[in-house]
């Protein structure tokens, strides 16, 4: 189906080799839990983001499995070690063909 939405990442643009950098990421998604009902009593089907993947120069450094108990507009703050300059990629995938991603460059000196 190809649903997508905005994802915003905050992290430093540069770091010294060996530094631990903090990464904040948030994605626009209602995370419909599957437990809500409409006013007429019909259950609203589940429609959530299921997975988050962070790669650093194509190597997985952090991964998340999300369940309906994650809040809407999922927000995660995590860390990674600055090893070499390159690209960090952040990918979300979920129900109904949902996929979004963004990248950020890191200069490591």
């Amino acid at each position: 189906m190809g649903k997508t939405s905005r994802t915003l990442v905050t992290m430093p643009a540069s770091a010294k080799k060996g530094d631990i950098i903090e990464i904040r990421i948030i994605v626009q998604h209602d995370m419909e839990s599957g437990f809500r009902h409409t006013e007429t009593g019909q259950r609203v089907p589940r429609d959530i983001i299921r997975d988050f993947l962070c790669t650093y120069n194509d190597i997985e450094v952090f991964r998340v499995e999300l369940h309906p108990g994650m809040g809407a507009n999922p927000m995660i703050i995590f860390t990674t070690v600055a090893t070499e300059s390159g690209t960090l990629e952040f990918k979300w995938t979920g129900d109904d063909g949902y996929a979004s991603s963004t990248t950020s460059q890191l200069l490591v000196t």
Partner: protein
Amino acid sequence: MSDQNAEMTFIAKVFVCCGICALVVVGALAKADPVGNERQSSYELMSADTKAMQDDPLLNPANFAVLDGRALWQEATGTNKIACAACHGEAKVSMKGVAASFPKLSTSRTGGRSLLNLGGRINQCRTEHQGAAPLALESKPLLSLSAFVSTQSKGMPITVERHASNAAHLEAGERLFNLRLGQLNLSCAQCHAERPGQKLAGNLIPQAHPTAYPIYRLEWQSVGSLERRLRNCLTGVRAEPFAFGSKELLELELFLAWRARGMPLESPGVRP
């Protein structure tokens, strides 16, 4: 059928609970409506976590609505294929202070004057200048545009004042604020003017100043307008909520904005 009966029993029990709470609240000591520096945004009543959520745009769930609004601002639309930006340019310049002046009377192209809130004014622009259909009230695009325009007034004082032209609307809004409504027979004033800071069912009662709209209400898990929140209040006192865009809600919004004049706008806000 038996499920329905069980449902009604549950509602009746919640109603009784609310009724008991209401009696306890009403029985406590009443005060006069806070004015001037005694006024306080409901921001002050929130937990540290929720305040932090509002303060940091990267944590604020309403931020996405602002970004959506910015995209809509730049999108050519309507039969005239014209974007908001084409006339208004940079919103941070042209819209500075605008949201803080609503609701207000607006003259339409046909010459009629009507009381409009920000959403209504955006729709007036759409129909009159863009040749576009008005956006449905409380729809995502209208809320996004409202969020984007409102945040351009962030930090600025609400400038709604009493004039000869809006006096009748203002008085109607004030009457509604003081009118007992619903099965619980409570007026806005009884909770928000006379008993702010006291508790209703475990929650602190705010003074109810509309300083942060549109808000991301955690209860809704989405962004919504002041009208949506007022309709929740009406449901809370077990009254039939006035329709979106109704005269009653608009006049109440006008009164609430006037009552909050001088207080800074926080939009977009986060509220529980």
